[in-house]
């Protein structure tokens, strides 16, 4: 048995690959694949070994390509076994994200395999493994810079495939391949074909349907971190101190990279524009608002949460099932609906974040890199540590849909007993109460009243980020509604929450992120600092907490109403529609409106004129097409063949006759083509002329269209005829001795 294995290992390949250029190009492709994968991580320790080892391996392969490499193969096998064990070990450590262990395994395989590449087949396997590395790199990539690797890799691989094909041709052929394809020419060829392939890939990419994914569990998450430094308290690195509500109203602290709403106190006098820096990337089955926290107490100038600490929630193994903490009365909260649907989200933290676990409301299952999290009374989730860059977690939320028309008038007395904080309002001005009562008068249900308040705000107040600070001691809602009359999301959300509470509807203010911008290449929703947002959560009896967004320009119902197109073709169409078609139509409309009015008599004839114009245009298009295809038109040149192929045969024969006529050999009208051909039997071009005449006669008189073979033969004969015609005519034939 061992002897058999040894003999097998000692076998030399049948065909050795001799092309150094081919090997170098494959090495370049492989290195590109390795770099594409490694660059997605923070250059793990193995990087230098893999890269240097692969290059050295190719050199060893070249030097030992025809030798007995049994010992080497044995060592490589041992190395592969070790890499396999290492992968299994790593997979057990990160069972929720096997990409890194697989990437490591492939990197080692690629490196080890590079030491034994004697033949073309082995080099092709190397290309295949490099492609898998590119795929792994793609799954790890978060941004569009990966396109650089893809383009480079595609060029190199196509060149490798060219060399592989040339090598295959050489191995199959008995003749020597001429080798006219220099590396420069191959590079040019690959650019041309890649351009063609890339264009086609782009079309396919745009048209490829994208179905809802994440059907396979578990969901990705980072390695588990056993750390608890927050003890359930909110920790925001940008706002380390808890601001006091009595200070800093005019000069509230503002950090352009960190939203002031992820704080224990939300100061409504904070002003500024948040940056465009990407803070989170989300891959989701459906975009939605990602809630971070909520506020229940309004002091007239800002918001805070009456319970600063959250309760621990732990699980031995992910996922953690999210539920209200002990002490919260759950009987008032409706249980799951049959119509509830899941939203799966995978979050990739791009920049340091507070210890808030963002997810769509209402979270149900959480795959988080910790066995312990904290949850507050409003189902706000806290991490036991700050969310550093690179942390990955997933969440499955429940989206609730309901039929508003089936809701009944609600009595909130029991709810008020358990949750008085959601009805709290400061001392409000009469005009605010009057306005709210006026908006909601006559509406039967809490839902209708909530929607009426929301729509009133959306329709009557513009969104403005550049408003001046509110004057000191001015209650924000009153000042916003009646003095400033403009504001940003926190002002709209505050106004709506307070107005709802003022008419007895329980409400709270929620902060988090809007869905962000969809990147069709990475399929991530890129959430930037500027996407931080505030909205309102209203408790609807029989349904539960529902989200409403009173800020104009945003979706009204964040829980159910966010619809973003992810199909690239639709994205492109929408973009064209809004940036090209609609502006163009508007411009045409404007231009037409500037024209003098059409006389009445012309108005009557519009259908007839249109019909004539369309007819003429169609005729022109038809004539141009027929001309281009060289199909003779019966009304221009008499009756002729309608078939394209027959037309080509006729054309060649006409050309032949013309060429002969120029040399003084004109066919008399009384002579048939055959007779004409016979009269030229002593000419050197008789052979092609014979073929041309034969095919023409058959096409003209048989009633059958000539086949492709005949057309090719005709073309060949025509080429030969032209060549012979250019030669000096042969001397007149001698008389045969017989």
């Amino acid at each position, binding site marked *: 048995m061992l002897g058999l294995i040894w003999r097998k290992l000692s076998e030399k390949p049948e065909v050795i690959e001799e092309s150094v250029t081919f090997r170098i190009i494959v090495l370049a492709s492989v290195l590109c694949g390795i770099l594409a994968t490694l660059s997605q991580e923070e250059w793990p320790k193995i990087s230098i070994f893999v890269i240097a080892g692969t290059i050295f391996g190719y050199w060893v392969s070249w030097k030992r390509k025809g030798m007995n490499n049994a010992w080497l193969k044995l060592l490589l096998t041992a190395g592969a076994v070790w890499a396999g064990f290492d992968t299994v070990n790593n997979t057990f450590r990160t069972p929720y994200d096997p990409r890194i262990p697989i990437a490591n395994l492939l990197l080692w395989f690629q490196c080890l395999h590079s030491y034994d590449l004697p033949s073309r087949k082995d080099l092709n396997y190397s290309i295949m493994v490099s492609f898998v590395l590119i795929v792994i790199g793609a799954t790890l990539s978060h941004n569009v810079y990966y396109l650089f690797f893809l383009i480079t890799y595609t060029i190199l691989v196509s060149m490798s495939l060219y060399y592989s094909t040339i090598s295959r*041709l050489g191995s199959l052929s008995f*003749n020597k391949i001429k080798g006219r394809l220099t590396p420069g020419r191959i590079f040019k060829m690959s650019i041309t*074909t890649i351009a063609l*392939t890339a264009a086609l*890939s782009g079309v396919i990419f745009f048209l490829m349907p994208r179905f809802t994914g*994440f059907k396979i569990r578990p969901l990705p998450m980072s390695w588990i971190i056993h750390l608890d430094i927050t003890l359930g308290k909110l920790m925001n690195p940008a706002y380390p101190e808890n601001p006091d509500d009595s200070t800093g109203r005019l000069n509230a602290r503002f950090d352009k990279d960190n939203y002031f709403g992820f704080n224990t106190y939300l100061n409504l006098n904070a002003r500024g524009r948040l940056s465009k820096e990407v803070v989170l990337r989300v*891959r989701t089955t459906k975009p939605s608002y990602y809630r971070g926290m909520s506020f229940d107490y309004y002091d007239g100038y800002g918001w805070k949460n009456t319970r600063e600490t959250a309760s621990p929630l732990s699980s031995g193994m992910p996922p953690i099932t999210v539920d209200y903490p002990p002490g919260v009365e759950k009987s008032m909260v409706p249980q799951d609906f049959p119509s509830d649907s899941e939203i799966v989200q995978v979050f990739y933290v791009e920049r340091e974040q507070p210890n808030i676990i963002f997810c769509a409301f209402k979270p149900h299952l959480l795959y988080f890199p910790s066995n312990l999290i904290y949850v507050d009374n409003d189902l706000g989730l806290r991490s036991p540590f700050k969310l550093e860059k690179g942390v990955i977690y997933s969440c499955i939320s429940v989206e609730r849909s309901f039929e508003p028309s089936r809701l009944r008038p609600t009595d909130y007395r029991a709810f008020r007993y358990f949750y008085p904080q959601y009805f709290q309002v400061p001392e409000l001005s009469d005009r605010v109460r009057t306005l709210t009562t006026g908006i909601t008068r006559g509406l039967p249900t809490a839902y209708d009243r909530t929607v009426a308040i929301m729509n009133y705000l959306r329709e009557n107040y513009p969104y403005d980020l550049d408003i001046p600070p509110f004057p000191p001691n001015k209650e924000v809602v009153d000042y916003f509604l009646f003095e400033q009359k403009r504001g940003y999301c926190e002002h709209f959300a505050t106004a709506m929450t307070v107005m709802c509470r003022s008419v007895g509807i329980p409400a709270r203010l929620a902060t988090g992120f809007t869905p962000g911008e969809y990147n069709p290449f990475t399929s991530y929703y890129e959430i930037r600092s500027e996407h931080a947002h505030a909205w309102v959560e209203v408790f609807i009896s029989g349904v539960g907490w529902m989200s409403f967004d009173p800020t104009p320009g945003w979706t009204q119902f964040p829980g159910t109403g966010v619809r973003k197109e992810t199909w690239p073709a639709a994205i492109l169409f929408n973009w064209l529609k809004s940036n090209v078609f609609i502006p163009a139509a508007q411009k045409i409309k404007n231009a037409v409106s500037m024209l003098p009015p059409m006389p009445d008599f012309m108005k009557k004839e519009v259908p007839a004129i249109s019909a004539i114009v369309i007819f003429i245009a169609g005729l022109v298009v038809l004539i141009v097409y027929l001309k281009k295809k060289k199909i003779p038109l019966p009304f221009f040149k008499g009756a002729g063949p309608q078939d394209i192929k027959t037309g080509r045969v006729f054309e060649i024969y006409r050309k032949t006759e013309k060429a002969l006529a120029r040399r003084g050999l004109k066919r008399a009208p009384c002579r048939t083509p055959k007779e004409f051909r016979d009269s030229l039997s002593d000419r050197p071009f008789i052979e092609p002329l014979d073929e041309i005449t034969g095919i023409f006669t058959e096409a003209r008189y048989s009633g059958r269209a000539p086949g492709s073979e005949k057309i090719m033969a005709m073309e060949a004969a025509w080429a030969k005829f032209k060549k012979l015609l250019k030669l000096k005519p042969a001397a007149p034939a001698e008389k045969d001795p017989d």
Partner: protein
Amino acid sequence: MKTLPGDHIPPRNHSAASGFLREHIDEIVLVGMMLGLYPIAVNTQIGWLYLLCGVLLALIIVSITVPRIILKHIMPVKILPPRVFEGDQFQVTAEITNRGKYNAYFLLLKDKSLNTEDKKPERTAGFDMISAGDTSSVHYTDSVSLRGVYPLAGLKVECSYPFGFFPGSRSFQQDGELVVYPHALPLSHGLIRGSEPIHSAQRSARHLAGQSFDFMGIREYQSGEPMKMIHWPSTARAGKLMVKEFRIPSRAALDIMLDNSYLWQAGRGHKNTLEIMVRIAASLGEFLLSHQLSFNFLYQDGDTVTRLQTPGRFIFLEKLARMQSSGKLSLEEMLGQSQKLISKSRPLLIITPEQASPETILSLPHSPNLTYFLLIKATDFILPGQKLPQDADEKKYDSFCRSVNSSGGYGCSVGKDDNPVKILERLLEKLPC
């Protein structure tokens, strides 16, 4: 035959399924990767994977489409000499012309040369590039082991541009045939006294010197013949080298009758009664012609006997090349029909595999002492599954020969393992010429 580099490719003896897998493994892997990547892209919702999936699909589409477009403009042609001798090597030229507007890349020409029954490896010639309007060619040698007329096998061109996957292929039928003359056995020249062998060059020289030969026709120039023989006016007309064929004007010295009846044919390949007869006739004919002796040749054409009167060398050889066991007459019937076609004063050589009865001698059209029988022992050549007439018996050949010899003629039999040269030389010693 010389082994060529392309010959090392072993014939593929796999089952249909495994053969398909081996041949298309690259394509299967490519399609598999594409089909495997799409569900992963859908489940993970990673846009790059959709893009890679699109790239693979585009690669497949380009790989399928481009070679087929290129092949539309490719025209391969095979050029062979029109006539060769069996067993001789000859050159085959395969030309590929690119009639398209763009360069053609990565072409593989596959040629079996001839539709022979020999298990010959397919010749594959690779071309990395053929410029637009350009022609590339390859040459190789081939040989045919058995005389006959062989139609040219079609050419197959495969294009694997640009990526080597899904190579497109197109077959091109080749019109024409190759006439393979039977191989003539060399006989000793001293057998015919007073008559020196004459070669083609001498015939030509005599023609130039004014000695007249009968003009028979024009044929294509054969490699190895003297340049002096080329007839330039005909060459100019035909566009290829032509020579004139002459017939030696002397009267026929011998009638050769070849019994190509299907009734007594046995054996296969070279060890076949008809092949032995054809080879003997060819050897004898070549020998006689080289000694300025002409002859008439009789054979069966269906149910009639046809005579070729004092044929020239190539006409005779071509007739032999095309000879088939298509006759329907028995030897007796053949002799009966030949009464008017042969001269009673001329020796008659009958080459036949039939076990003629001694009475056959009585049906001869002329004196038995001018009759020579070469009996090919069909019973020696018989193979399992083949049948001869019921009264076939090996001993009858010898008894018939004895009868012929006793009647003043000459008869001998040729077995499977006999040397036909010796027998022919013995026969020639007996011939009065």
